[in-house]
C-alpha cells in the first residue's frame, strides 16, 4: 500500500515538476533540481529524527526491536544524506560553477551531520551485539539529532549567502504552483523513505528469525 502510494506520488511529482511548475526566471531549468534536492534533504533529517526517537525508546522504555528500528532509520538517513550531497553538488556546479564550496556553513554543517551518522556504523559494528551496543548506539543517535536544527538554521545565521533561502519567517518564497509541486515531491520522498524503511526492517527481522530457527534445528 505504502509502496504503491510512493510510486504514485513519485510519478505525480515528476509530472508536476516538468509539466506544471514554471521554469524559474532567475535560475532557469536548473532550479528543477530543487524539487528533489530539498525534499531529499528534509527526508534525511526526518530519518535521523526518527532514528533518534527510536533510540530514546531504547534508553527510556527498553522497547524490544527499537534498536534495530533506530539503526534502519539512520541507515536510510545516511542514504538520503548522500543523495542530498550528490544532487546539491550537481546543482552547485550549474549555479555557482563549483561542485563544492567550504565557505558555506549550510553545506559544511550538512557534511558534518552526514559524516557524524556515517561514524555511527563504525561504532555499531565495532561493539558486540547486546545491551552495551544498544545503549552506545542510542546515545550516539541522540547526540546526532542535536546537529539537525543547527544544520537547518545555519543558512539563516550565515552572513554571506550563496545558498538560496526559500523558507523564511514570511513563508515559502516561491509561486503557489512551485510550492504545491514541492509539497507533492516532499510527500513522495517521505513515502519512498517509509517504504524502504519498512522493506529493510522486514528483511532484517526475517533474517534474525531464520538465524534463530537454524540454531534451533542444528
Amino acid at each position, binding site marked *: 500500500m505504502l509502496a504503491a502510494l510512493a510510486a504514485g506520488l513519485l510519478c505525480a511529482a515528476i509530472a508536476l515538476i516538468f509539466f506544471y511548475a514554471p521554469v524559474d526566471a532567475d535560475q532557469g531549468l*536548473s532550479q528543477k*533540481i530543487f524539487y528533489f534536492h530539498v525534499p531529499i534533504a528534509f527526508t534525511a533529517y526526518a530519518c535521523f529524527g526518527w532514528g533518534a526517537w527510536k533510540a530514546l525508546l531504547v534508553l527510556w522504555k527498553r522497547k524490544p526491536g527499537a534498536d534495530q528500528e533506530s539503526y534502519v532509520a539512520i541507515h536510510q538517513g545516511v542514504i538520503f544524506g548522500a543523495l542530498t550531497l550528490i544532487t546539491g553538488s550537481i546543482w552547485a556546479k550549474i549555479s555557482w560553477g563549483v561542485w563544492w564550496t567550504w565557505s558555506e556553513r549550510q553545506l559544511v554543517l550538512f557534511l558534518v551531520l552526514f559524516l557524524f551518522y556515517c561514524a555511527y556504523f563504525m561504532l555499531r559494528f565495532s561493539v558486540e551485539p547486546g545491551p552495551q551496543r544498544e545503549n552506545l548506539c542510542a546515545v550516539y543517535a541522540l547526540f546526532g539529532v542535536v546537529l539537525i536544527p543547527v544544520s537547518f538554521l545555519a543558512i539563516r545565521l550565515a552572513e554571506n549567502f550563496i545558498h538560496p533561502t526559500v523558507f523564511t519567517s514570511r513563508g515559502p518564497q516561491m509561486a503557489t504552483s512551485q510550492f504545491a509541486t514541492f509539497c507533492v515531491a516532499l510527500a513522495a520522498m517521505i513515502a519512498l523513505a517509509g517504504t524502504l524503511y519498512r522493506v529493510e526492517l522486514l528483511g532484517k527481522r526475517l533474517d534474525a528469525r531464520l538465524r534463530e530457527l537454524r540454531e534451533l534445528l542444528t
Partner: protein
Amino acid sequence: MSVSEKYVAAAYLVVFAFVVVYLAIMALKLTRLEREVGELTELARRRMNG
C-alpha cells in the same frame, strides 16, 4: 541538449539509479532468504522423518 538540461537529467538519474540499486539489493536479499527457508524446511522435514 543544453548544459542545464544535462545537469538536471544527471541529478534525477542519480536518484532513479539509487532506487534501482536499492531494489536490486533487496531482491538479492529476498532470494537468499527464500533459499534459506527452503533449506530449513528440508532440514525440519528430515528431522520429522527421523
